């Protein structure tokens, strides 16, 4: 085994062969169980801030690969967003909605309802969708070729009913 692991899309495996009876879907509970136990262990090992940074980074890699393998980046912006919304619903990741969009400056305010990471969580008083932040920024970077930041400003865990992200292209 190599010293570092490099993710590739085909590492997700052939689920129709691998899970002929159980199928390709699992429960949100299992997904969250893995994510929040990771968070628990990582934060104790490397600290909370570093853990959050790694979750954002992993989310960005996931967003990049999702965009490459699932989305059609040749579509014009409006149609690309429409397809992204459809795919996020189809994969039961969340319901993406745009509240504000400045296509020239590449600045957006968007929401994800029924979010896979946080919807239904108790109020922690801080946003928890760090993986989502990276995921959104990763998708937009892959589509536009420019770096993005995505900051979650409202979250179920802060008492909201939808996750709200401020997304901006980074100059330079």
């Amino acid at each position, binding site marked *: 085994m190599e010293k570092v692991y490099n993710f590739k899309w085909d590492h997700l495996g052939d689920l129709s062969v691998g899970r002929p009876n159980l199928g390709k879907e699992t429960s949100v509970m299992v997904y969250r169980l893995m994510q929040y136990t990771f968070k628990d262990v990582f934060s104790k090992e490397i600290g909370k801030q570093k853990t959050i940074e790694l979750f954002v980074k992993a989310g960005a890699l996931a967003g990049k690969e999702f965009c490459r393998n699932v989305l059609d980046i040749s579509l014009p912006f*409006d*149609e690309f*967003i*429409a397809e992204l*919304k*459809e795919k996020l*619903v189809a994969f039961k990741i969340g*319901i993406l*909605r*745009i*509240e*504000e*969009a400045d296509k020239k400056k590449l600045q957006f305010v968007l*929401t994800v*309802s*029924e979010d896979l990471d946080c919807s239904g969580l108790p*109020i922690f*008083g801080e946003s928890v969708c760090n993986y989502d932040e990276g995921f959104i920024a990763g998708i937009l970077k892959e589509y536009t070729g420019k770096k993005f930041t995505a900051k979650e400003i*409202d979250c179920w865990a*802060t*008492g*909201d*009913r*939808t996750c*709200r992200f401020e997304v901006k292209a980074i100059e330079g």
Partner: protein
Amino acid sequence: MNSRQILEDLNTCFEEAMQRGLGQKGLIFPIDLDNVDDDELKHICVRLAAIFDMLNESYHYSEKLAKGDLKAKPSRTNIFAMPLKGLQASLTHLTWQANQVAEGDLSQQVHFLGRFSDSFNHMIKSLREKEVIEQRLKLISNVIGEGIFLVTSEGKIIFLNPEASRLLGYFPDEIENKFIHEIIHTQRLDGSFYQPGDNPIFNAITHGDKYNNTDGCFTCKSGLLMPVMIACRPVFKEDILDGAVIAFRDITEQKNYLKSLETINSLLEKQASTDTLTGIYNRMKFDEKLMIEIKRAHRYNSPLSFVMFDIDNFKKVNDTYGHLAGDNVLKRLAGLVAANIRDTDIFARWGGEEFVIQLPGLSLARAIIFAEKLRHKIEKYNFKEPEKITVSFGVTVFQARDNNITLTNRADAALYRAKENGRNQVRSSNE
């Protein structure tokens, strides 16, 4: 205060709120915490006061949302406002979606908002279908080789396609909102202007009539008149006249083609009826005219004289001076005779050096006088090479049982006698 008093005060507060509503002030927590001595009761009252604050805040928040204020923001910990935050997010997104649709983005869809999703998505589907129809119509309008105007029922131009713009030389913004009868269709092809009430397109538009004109005329921006074929059709909206569609085609080339065709036909007709050497009628045309004159003479019982003449010793001219000189003699003789007959007379080359003249309305006696005068003029005329020639004449007049052959034969016989008697003389069929 004990717990009973607290409950009684709360009860009074709720009773009033349920009767009068919350109003601007909202629910006012009725307990003065300083008057609650029991610590446990005090804690309960503190939580109750917080609940009152949350209720008041979510009430004002919902009021703002009801007024369309999508920037309203309650505190994060307000548990009563949470479902409204979901609604607020949906409304904010719908506002953005509505703007997207207004800018032509028909990829928008609404999910998970119950009947509203169905209605919105149905609206998008209808707009997409409409867009497809509009794109097809626009494509047809753009590529069709005809100019198209859409006008109101008063004749005001509200649309023109690129071909109309190209043909007339106007940009759309130069002509839109102007009246078609005041700027485009103002004149007839002869240049005269339409008077109020007699402009056919204006009348058709305002009366909701169909109008076709295969020989119409539009005025271009340059001021030039363009011959056009026009079709005007009324447009009705719920049985009420709403304007008209006017299609037109430039027929300048068609008209030029017809004109050149007329010229060619006229030339061909002339060639078919003219003797190429002398320029006067040939025998075929003469026969055609003779049939007409014979019919006329029959119908009106009017005289029709017939003269046949022949150059004396013409072979000698050709032999002595050459065929070119002979041709010149024939041309000069034809010119001389043509200059000395009436417009109504019909003069033709019969063949070789032989000529014929129909003299409608002239009796035999007057035809003989005419022939004699002509003979004399020819005798005196200088033909240059040779200077002098003479001509023999045979004259006859139409008789009731005549046809073109009998009439010609009689004139030919008289001419023969003139030759036999020594040439340079006039002989008639009566002799």
